[in-house]
């Protein structure tokens, strides 16, 4: 079958961006959630829309209760787009709005999307969010919007991009200097803000990156990996 070439492949082969989420560190503080909102121009849904289940959190902290009082326990799990190697959302898109980049990102091309929303159904992680209406910010909240990130218009699907704008920036800098992006040089907003350093981001094709080393941990598992989605995010189990 046809392999497609990446014109801008870095020295030493392509990147494969990935993340490690250490559930033993995650405290559910949700700093990542707001950092993501700020970085990615995520719309404010408002109470009415949120009550319809339309609040957008590209990264959300799922909370699971276990047991009853007095043995009740809570587990947190940050869930964001897993950037699956074999993503169920991608092939079902009739217009290639959802596709796989050479560096392992599960990309969403907003201006291609016509809004059939099949990808949203077929994502086992339910991390795709839809723009039900034209997004709105009360003036002057819109002055905060990040110029590097598109404001998604009505009728298109959106989701976590691993802060692709930052990745591309770092890649271009590295390319200009004729080198690979260094480990830790680029971090998505969520990883950057995480107080407990539960989130780690990096290149899985670099065996020495923190992500590669951490993902070999015994505690590692992929969320719903039994579905064969080959997620790019490795979770490290919480120790209890």
């Amino acid at each position: 079958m046809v392999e497609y070439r990446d014109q801008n492949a870095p020295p030493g082969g392509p990147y494969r961006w990935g993340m490690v989420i250490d559930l033993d560190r995650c405290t559910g503080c949700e700093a990542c959630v707001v950092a993501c909102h700020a970085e990615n121009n995520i719309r404010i849904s408002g109470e009415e829309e949120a009550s319809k289940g339309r609040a957008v959190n590209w990264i959300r902290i799922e909370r699971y209760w276990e047991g009853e009082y007095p043995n009740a326990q809570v587990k947190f799990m940050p869930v964001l787009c897993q950037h699956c190697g074999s993503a169920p959302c991608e092939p079902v898109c009739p217009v290639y709005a959802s596709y796989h980049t050479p560096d392992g990102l599960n990309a969403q091309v907003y201006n291609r999307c016509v809004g059939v929303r099949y990808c949203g159904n077929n994502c086992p992680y339910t991390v795709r969010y839809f723009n039900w209406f034209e997004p709105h910010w009360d003036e002057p909240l819109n002055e905060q919007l990040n110029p590097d990130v598109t404001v998604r218009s009505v009728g298109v699907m959106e989701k976590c991009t691993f802060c692709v704008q930052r990745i591309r920036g770092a890649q271009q800098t590295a390319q200009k200097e004729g080198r690979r992006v260094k480990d830790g040089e680029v971090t998505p907003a969520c990883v950057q803000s995480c107080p407990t350093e539960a989130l780690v981001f990096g290149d899985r094709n670099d065996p020495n990156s923190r992500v590669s080393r951490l993902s070999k941990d015994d505690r590692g598992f992929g969320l719903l990996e039994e579905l064969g989605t080959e997620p790019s995010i490795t979770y490290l189990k919480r120790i209890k």
Partner: protein
Amino acid sequence: MDLKRRDFLKVLGATAAGSLLPGCAGETKKLIPYLLPDEEIVPGVANWYASVCRECEAGCGILVRVMEGRARKVEGNPTHPVNRGKLCARGQASLQGLYNPDRLQGPLQREGARGEGRFKPISWEDGMSRWVSELEKHPGGAVLISRPVPGTLARLFSTFIKEISGRLLFYHPSAERALAAANHRSFGIDLLPEYDLANTTYLLSFGAPFLSDWLSPVHYGFAYGRMRQGRPTVRGRFIQVEPRLSLTAASADRWVPIRPGTEGLLAVGIGQVILQEGRARLAKGDRGRFEKFYSAFSLDQIAAETEVPREGIIRLARGFSEAAAPLAIGGGSAAAQTNGTNTLMAINALNLLVGNLGAPGGIRFLQPVEGFHSAQAHPVSEQALLDLRGFFKKQKRSVLMLYQSNPLYALPSSTRFREVFEDAAFVVSFNSFMDESTALADLILPDHFFLESWGDFLNEGIVPTAGLAQPVVIPRYDTRPVGDLFLSVAKRIGGRMEERLPWIDFRTMLREQWKTFLARRERDKSFEAAWVERLQQGGWWGPEGRLVSVSRRALPDAVEPARFEGDPKEYPFYLSLFESMGLHGGEGANRPWLQELPDPMTSVVWGSWVEINPKTAREYGIQEREIVRVISPYGEIEASVIYFPGNRPDLISIPLGQGHTAYGRYAKGRGVNPLTLLAPMIDPLSGTLATGATRVRIERTGRRGRPVLVDQTGEGTRRHPEGKKGET
């Protein structure tokens, strides 16, 4: 030629760009003003400015990304010792304070009766004159309630207030006064310590919500991550003792649901077991004193009182004392009782028993940054605020000034703090938003938002740190920095006041302050060079400071039971109020990001709720999401019920932060303020409000509420997907 070539080219560029947009007149308005003589604004290129976050009292270092003259993103300052490049949800959301649509845009003067809420814009000149004349009319009667502003502004305030013989109260609801009081009594030190979580191997926390809103959440969050997974072979254990399974307890290895108000007793019980089993690491001279103190208690009685079984206490004691680096901390619900200070002292005694003071993984009191002239801003407790009532009654006509503080919202209505506003001759607010207290002001002279102002911040504990804040954007509205206002008034008053506060504006004063400070630290550099460097770095922080030696190792005076308002027969439930993750005490309520931030435990957004243990709720026949009435002897509220398996069956818990009657479109009229339930119960040792000391009952309303949950069904959340791997 007057027109410089460079400017001419810019004009040309703008014209050219403008001509490319013929059809969209609306767009051209947004064209970046190339004509602005600001060399720093280059379209498409981000500038980063270091500053200090002022969203809570922690004072994290931040870097603000500014593009086209607008602040786009706030990130942690990686070199700052408090937060090391990390930042919490509230810090991230500070941008929504800066660009909040409900910010006060200029000076306002009251119209109609006080509290009617009608204001009309006035000029700064008039506003200032009004303020000064009121100050002059009421000599010796001025009171300034300010949030704690450790740094140059604190010096300015205190000098100013002293000169007019007024009163200055630094107040913030989450200032942890009980902890300061307890540490003062236990160790004889008037400082907040640093708890070395990162190196702890066994953390025993009595209600301290250090992962959400206690002292410096980002700092302790970072340390927590290290404690758990930062060391190659050691993973610190963490036990949380509190009646409600809080966000912090969710991360604990074990949650001990103790009876409210008996945390001190449990600490005593643990201490007794440690002593009896001979694992105490006490100085020789202390042993007798400690044994005498602990032997007065019966472990069985403690078990009965605390509802923690005897074996459990012994287990905790062994785990704690056998650990290489144990640490006991207390706060939050444990401190929110009438015996809070004594409870915290009993917890401090545990640390004394294992001798972890100054040790790695223990409690360390570090010398704060030195060399600033009288820049401390010790916060006061609620009691001090309540004492104002008498002062205003006695003093009759005096002037009340508010700076970034909203006591009317933060204090329960039962404290009748409103009387202060009613008795004041004149109320001036420098707040940036029309909050509950500002709505009662006669004159509003809004300050710049902190991202628009100069400032500094002296962090207590940790390494000696002085954060330096600079304006990252051009002030958006017709506001003025509060420092400038005070300095200009000083000039008008003249005389000794002007002598003491001679600076032309606050920035000059700040530079002067730092000039003296830096002169001692960086002798090899010129001040200008050092100043620019500090601005770039976001402040000054030195190497690890000196440990302050502990002068006292005191035991609690008494471990008396907590007092509760309300007859247990009529009011069968304890009440626990907690700060919600995003809104904290309510300051975050006007930031839509924080309103829409799901509460981590219940996933509720945009509203209030009442947490009840599901078993209790079923006994009362209360459906999930049904609206219940929570009634205390002092008030009642109605909110939707969320089943909360992490509540003791005899506990009702309600988040703080909502129920604003003002404070902008996102906050006003949303949810309920549970503070209205509270009795005016005070912990006498620290003077703090005991928020857990009111008992309540619940009544069904039969109405179904519409709480907004991100976890839409709330049903499936008991099955953790990790379990699917067959691991345990």
